[in-house]
């Protein structure tokens, strides 16, 4: 049934449909609408999950690590400072191979204190062993949350559904909310590969010496690699039931493109319009949306981007002392190709600043009109520049 939902509410609907057993969360703007909606479901008797209103994000994830080891399907949600506080246990959840699912609403890190969209919070967690899925609209949020449970429970790794603050978390859109019996077909109840059992007591997260630790890490690496092919087959199953699929990346008119724009999150939707407008003007431009950032779908990215002459990566994030984080990863993915396109890295929209069609078109023009990148990172729309870097 179609409903008009915020991205936050779409997450909550999916968590209800997934028949989650234990929810544990701590409030932080702009994630609060997710946990408030779930709390309403609980108060109305629409979900039977046990909801732990913990005293910190660190404890939110700790409680889920305990609950997931107990065999429960689990959910939490956070943003920014909260995700940073969880950092220690993000590593723990993946190391313990627990299929915990989290909705992470991208928000800038302080100072300056800023509650608006910025991807640096989740991208700073890229080495923690979590699957990361960046979403573009509310339908994708709902669908990806269901897919994330299936995926996480298949490969025994935790998964993060990531949505931009306000642009997605607080924006209302029509969403097809699937029927419960169809969701049950796609996502049966969790059958844990290991769990707390009085009749077969096990020790979890023991002390491990150098002669076994590396093999455990290698197992996680293998599970991450497997995630890419599993996403394809799980989305196939999802498509059979619901008629929708997304892919680890999405390629829009890249086949004959001279320049391919690379985006993630809600900037993608704006970029789709720009691509249409530019194509209408005869420009040979394409769009590559990266949905899955961990594991990074290197093969798909190479085959999509290798025939272009120039790549323009738009990063709503930044790694100080380096570059935008998507740009880094794209450069690394392409560097061993015999013929590589030039990669232009653009930093835009930090701290929730709007990235308009005009800005995206200016990024395209800058890429087209420049033979080689003037610097590794081109900051867009700066109100003051002192070092002569490009500005639009």
């Amino acid at each position: 049934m179609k409903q008009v939902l915020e991205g936050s509410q779409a997450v909550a609907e999916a968590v209800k449909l997934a028949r989650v057993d234990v929810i544990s969360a701590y409030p932080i703007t702009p994630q609060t609408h997710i946990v408030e909606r779930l709390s309403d479901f609980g108060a109305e008797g629409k979900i039977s999950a046990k909801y732990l209103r913990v005293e910190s994000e660190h404890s939110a994830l700790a409680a889920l690590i305990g609950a997931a080891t107990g065999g429960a399907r689990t959910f939490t949600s956070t943003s920014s400072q909260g995700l940073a506080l969880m950092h220690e246990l993000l590593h723990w959840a993946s190391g313990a191979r627990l299929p915990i699912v989290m909705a992470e609403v991208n928000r800038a890190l302080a100072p300056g204190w800023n509650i608006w969209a910025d991807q640096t919070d989740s991208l700073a967690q890229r080495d923690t062993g979590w699957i990361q899925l960046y979403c573009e609209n509310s339908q994708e949020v709902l669908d990806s949350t269901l897919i994330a449970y299936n995926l996480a429970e298949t490969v025994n790794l935790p998964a993060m559904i990531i949505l931009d603050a306000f642009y997605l978390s607080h924006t209302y859109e029509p969403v097809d909310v699937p029927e419960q019996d169809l969701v049950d077909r796609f996502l049966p109840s969790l059958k844990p590969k290991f769990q707390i059992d009085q009749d077969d007591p096990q020790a979890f997260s023991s002390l491990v010496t150098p002669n076994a630790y590396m093999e455990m890490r290698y197992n996680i690496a293998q599970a991450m690699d497997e995630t890419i092919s599993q996403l394809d087959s799980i989305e196939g199953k999802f498509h059979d039931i619901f008629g929708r699929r997304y892919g680890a990346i999405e390629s829009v008119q890249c086949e004959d493109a001279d320049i391919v724009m690379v985006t993630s999150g809600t900037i993608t939707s704006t970029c789709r319009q720009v691509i249409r407008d530019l194509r209408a003007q005869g420009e040979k431009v394409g769009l590559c949306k990266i949905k899955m950032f961990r594991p990074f779908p290197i093969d798909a990215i190479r085959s999509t981007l290798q025939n272009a002459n120039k790549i323009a990566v738009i990063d709503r994030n930044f790694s100080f002392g380096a570059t935008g984080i998507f740009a880094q990863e794209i450069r690394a993915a392409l560097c061993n190709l015999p013929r590589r396109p030039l990669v232009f890295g653009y930093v835009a929209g930090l701290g929730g600043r709007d990235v308009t069609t005009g800005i995206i078109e200016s990024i395209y023009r800058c890429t087209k009109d420049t033979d080689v990148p003037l610097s590794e990172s081109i900051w867009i729309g700066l109100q003051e520049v002192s070092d002569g870097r490009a500005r639009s």
Partner: protein
Amino acid sequence: MSIVANFDLYAPRLVNKEEYFVHGHRACQGCAEALAIRLMCKALGKDAVIINATGCMEVVSSLYPTTAWKLPWLHVAFPNSAAAGSGVSAALKVLRRKGKISDRPVKAVSIGGDGGTFDIGLQALSGAMERGHDLLYVCFDNEAYMNTGIQRSGATPFGASTTTHPAGPASTGKSAWKKNLTEIMIAHNVPYVATACPSYPIDFIRKVEKAKKVKGPAFIHVLAVCPTGWRCASEKAISMGRLASETGVFPIYEVVDGKYSLTIKHDKLRPVADYLKLQGRFRHLSPDMVKQVQERVVQEYNKLLDKVDNLHAWSELKG
């Protein structure tokens, strides 16, 4: 008659003969904490899950692929055994309700050392106790960060020399007094709070049994003598725990629904010097400092006696 044969004669009536924390762990000689864990497990029986904060007991008992635990055992970092325990408790409850696991009650038991409880884990412990989970928390307090090498904690007593606050020409060891964690737990209106020591094994076992029966939060603070960190003879671990009680340094009591009672009583307290002089960590204390400790111990003990004599159970205070 050997101790073992003697044990067979009378102990089955007092103590569960099953072992759930077994030989092969790597605790130091004379570790009273390992003994306390063994006794706790006997009192808990088969239907318990242990959630262990990082610390000595985690490290000595769990070297992969071995384990000293015959109960399900879970280690989740340093600051959060109470939070992870609340998650285990919630999962077991909801999965039982949904018919996904067997219907018999299983107790979630979070444990931690003094560092993991008094210091880095205090917030998570406070949250778990406030939320009122069916969760028993047992703190095994050896009065410093012993696992990392005898560093000062909020549980380290006044004057003790540790590796991060050593005694020396310009230092007399820890300059602050020990935090009163038990009172912090009582302030949470936890229905069962107790102190215990494995030097009084039957008292400790009975307290674990009582705490296990509480349908809600419960907290036990165990003094665990650490010969390595206290710099005392390993064969003195048991008598040292008794001295802690006999001098009033560590009174052994329980608080049931707000009603205080001493479960180990002494007609007259022994001088604290009897306790301090056997431990290398206090060897630098001047007579003046020993006097300071003596006065503080008596004052704290009298505060406790005042509560034992004058405070009522909550049920007696209803409007």
